């Protein structure tokens, strides 16, 4: 039997060989569904760990005094009150007087794409050569050695972040979500299972960049027109079985199918309303408006459309479309029942998203809008994760989720508090009490201040 089968196989191989020689092989690129540029991130070794006695904000609006967080195998195993059972013989940290939150998540970062030092040779965030560049992927610009990643970890407790292309273009390209772990390659940071996003921009930036070059769009109406034509082309592409592959249109079709989330830079209330209408026209959904300075004017509309607003606490007045920025933006949105995310868009503010959340919370309180501390923490944890499509994996302290955890040395919403320890997938990646538990990027080796607490 075996010999016979081998004989058949040999004959088939010969026939196949003849055929191969007769016609060149068909060359086929892998499809995205087959996994291109796959994540190579693997959680680092971890030991079963518990934190006992801390005040816990679970990221989904809950607060537990004198609580217990138990993580093992890289996952959250249990979260509860002081009676929560934990095994003997595991690492236990005393959290008395301290606080625990999920890892902080920044939905809007350019770390790696606009890294430090911010020299022209590092300016990789805006493919500002065409008003629509859905074909570019932010991950192909990420420099993993950007020292900003370590600062976001050590000072901000940031465990996951979305890197977006810049806002020069109406369609800036794909975003990538990263775990905030040092790595030699982008793939080593790439968040396993995170969906892609499409960065879009409305308003001043695209019309300025292209209008100044004497080309469309030079107006807001031009912005919308170019967008609509591009979407129509993508719909035609999706309906044409014989169409030649087009990387940009693949991204747009991914949006139309609901697989890729739209992150739209948009400041003004009236423009956000237009974009939501355009999305309805074309059959896609906006996940989140970023920099939504005027979102407070249309909290009802944003709630009805299920669109999140990713906002700063206090940026205002630096450009015309930010002139109506107010401190109460987040609080008004929260009161309307709309989704609030606090974002950074900044290599410095990403280090203090907790403080930005407090500013926004306090502004509401002064008007009698009482937003709990636990809810303010949700703005920079679970809400960000939801808007990025990773809330089933991280963003809250719930059984089975990634053990992305921050132990703060005090109230995490206070200016006087700092991260003491940060775990990512259960692995301790930062410890303020241990100088060697502080990542130093390749760029910083041998430079003034190497390994300083920074």
């Amino acid at each position, binding site marked *: 039997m075996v010999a016979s089968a081998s004989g058949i196989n040999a004959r088939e191989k010969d026939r196949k060989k003849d055929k191969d020689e007769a016609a060149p092989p068909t060359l086929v690129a892998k499809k995205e569904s087959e996994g291109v540029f796959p994540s190579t991130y693997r959680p680092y070794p971890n030991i079963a760990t518990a934190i006992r006695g801390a005040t816990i904000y679970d990221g989904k609006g809950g607060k537990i005094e004198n609580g217990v967080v138990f993580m093992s195998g890289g996952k959250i195993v249990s979260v509860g009150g002081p009676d929560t059972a934990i095994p003997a013989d595991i690492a236990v940290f005393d959290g008395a007087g301290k606080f625990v939150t999920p890892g902080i998540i920044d939905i809007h970062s350019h770390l790696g794409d606009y890294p430090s*030092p911010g020299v022209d040779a590092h300016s990789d965030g805006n493919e500002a050569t065409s008003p629509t560049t859905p074909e570019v992927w932010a991950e192909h610009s990420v420099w993993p050695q950007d020292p900003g990643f370590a600062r976001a970890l050590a000072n901000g407790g940031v465990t996951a972040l979305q890197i977006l292309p810049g806002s020069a273009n109406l369609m800036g390209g794909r975003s990538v979500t990263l775990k905030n772990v040092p790595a030699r390659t982008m793939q080593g940071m790439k968040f396993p299972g995170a969906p892609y996003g499409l960065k879009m921009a409305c308003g001043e930036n695209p019309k300025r960049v292209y209008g100044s070059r004497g080309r469309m769009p030079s107006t807001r109406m031009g912005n919308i027109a170019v967008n609509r034509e591009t979407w129509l082309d993508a719909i035609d592409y999706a309906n044409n079985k014989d169409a030649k592959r087009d990387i940009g249109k693949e991204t747009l079709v991914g949006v139309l199918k609901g697989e890729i989330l739209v992150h739209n830079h948009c400041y003004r209330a009236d423009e956000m309303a237009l974009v939501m209408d355009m999305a309805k026209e074309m059959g896609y959904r906006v996940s989140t408006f970023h920099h939504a300075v005027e979102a407070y004017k249309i909290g009802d509309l944003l709630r009805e459309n299920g669109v999140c607003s990713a906002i700063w606490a206090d940026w205002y007045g*630096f450009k015309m479309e930010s002139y109506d920025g107010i401190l109460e933006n987040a609080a008004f949105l929260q009161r309307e029942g709309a989704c609030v995310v606090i974002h950074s868009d900044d290599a410095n503010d990403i280090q203090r998203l907790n403080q930005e959340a407090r500013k926004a919370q306090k502004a509401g309180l002064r008007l009698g809008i009482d937003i709990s501390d636990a809810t303010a923490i949700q703005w920079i944890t679970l809400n960000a994760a939801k808007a990025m499509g990773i809330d089933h994996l991280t963003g809250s302290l719930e059984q089975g989720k990634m053990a992305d955890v921050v132990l703060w040395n005090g109230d995490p919403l206070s*200016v*006087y508090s700092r991260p003491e320890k940060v775990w990512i997938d259960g692995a301790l990646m930062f410890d*303020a009490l241990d100088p060697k538990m502080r990542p130093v990027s390749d760029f910083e080796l041998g430079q003034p201040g190497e390994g300083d607490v920074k």
Partner: protein
Amino acid sequence: MKRFASCGLSALAVFTAITAPAMAQDVTITNARLVLGDGGAPIDNGTVVVRGGSVVYAGPASGAPAGGTAVDAKGAWVTPGLFATLTTLGLADVSAVGESNDITAGGAPFSAALDAATSINPTSQHILVHKAAGITRAATTMRPSGSIFAGQGAIIDLDGDPRPVIQARAFQMINLGEGGAARAGGSRPAAHALLRAALREAQALAGKPGLPETTEIAKGDDVLLSRFDAEALVPVVTGRQKLYVEVDRMADIRAVLALKQEYPRLDLVLVGATEGWLVARDIAAAGVPVIANGLTDLPETFEQLGATQSNAGRLARAGVKVAINASTMQDPRRLQQVAGNLVALNRVPGAAGMEWGKAFAAISSVPAEISGMGGKAGVLTPGALGDVVIWDGDPLEVGSVPTRVWIGGISQDLTNHQTRLRDRYNDLDESARPKAYDW
């Protein structure tokens, strides 16, 4: 009463000439958690007495003189108004809207001669918003654009009245780092040569014999220094006007300190000084104060490789007079947040922060002293201007804001564009009329 100061007057002479504003009320603020701004710890059950626009008493309730309208702070924090340095307040409405922006003038043939005092807009929303954030006085300046010289900055108040300038031409600012190098033609030596040429020209104009006199320093169509600019540098080279030098790198800081050997009368102030901690003892020995970047901790440029949030704290420990620099912040109203972060650093092993009182002083009395208003602003001591703020929380805690602000003894209206928008959109009800009728 505010007045313009000529460069010929010393700052002291100017401020002693300040008299009571007509509208100032005599006010006594009681039951305060009182911060004097002098670096000390808060005083519980404190009292502040302001008469004729000036502080006559600040301290424990027991020692306070009677009289004046009484305001019960009900245990709230009461502080001097914050002094913001270095800002561009009053020089732009929207920085990205060129027509509204007087911060830079890259197309002008002038540089050192530019005078911020000629264009401060006291009703700029940025001034009104920052007043509502507890900032009562500020040093405000243009940015270098056509040359290494930014021009002459002013000391202003934020009360929104028609006379915002309390000292014109208080300082000249230059950049001798990467920014100055680029504007001088592409290198630091070019920037230093331009500075020396300009100062020699100013010396000649001041009557120093034996020096050559040029008419203009130019390259191609760019005027780097005109005669008018050189004249503006006379008070700098003679030490009557402060010279703020923006530098970050350790080597550049050393080069600035060395200028004193050539030009002993320069009244130097370092701005930025990101790597100052690496040369802190030299700065302290030179007696040069620093308007330091507070939280800059990224190597954003090659001249900031040593950036650390411990910079200000380490400088202060070495004995340097340190104020926190507002110019690299999103807005100067983040000064309180930065100071609070410096307090937080004290609990991080290996880091250097500041005790609470020192951190508050770094955004109140110390910047006032550096700006030539020592004892007059940023502090609640007898004789100081009546700039007083009552807060709704710890003033260094994020989210705390003033509930009352006095400037020169005058109670301030804290309304501005932001508060009006806040009030209009406090609900989204348009059932009767559109929002445009809600005002």
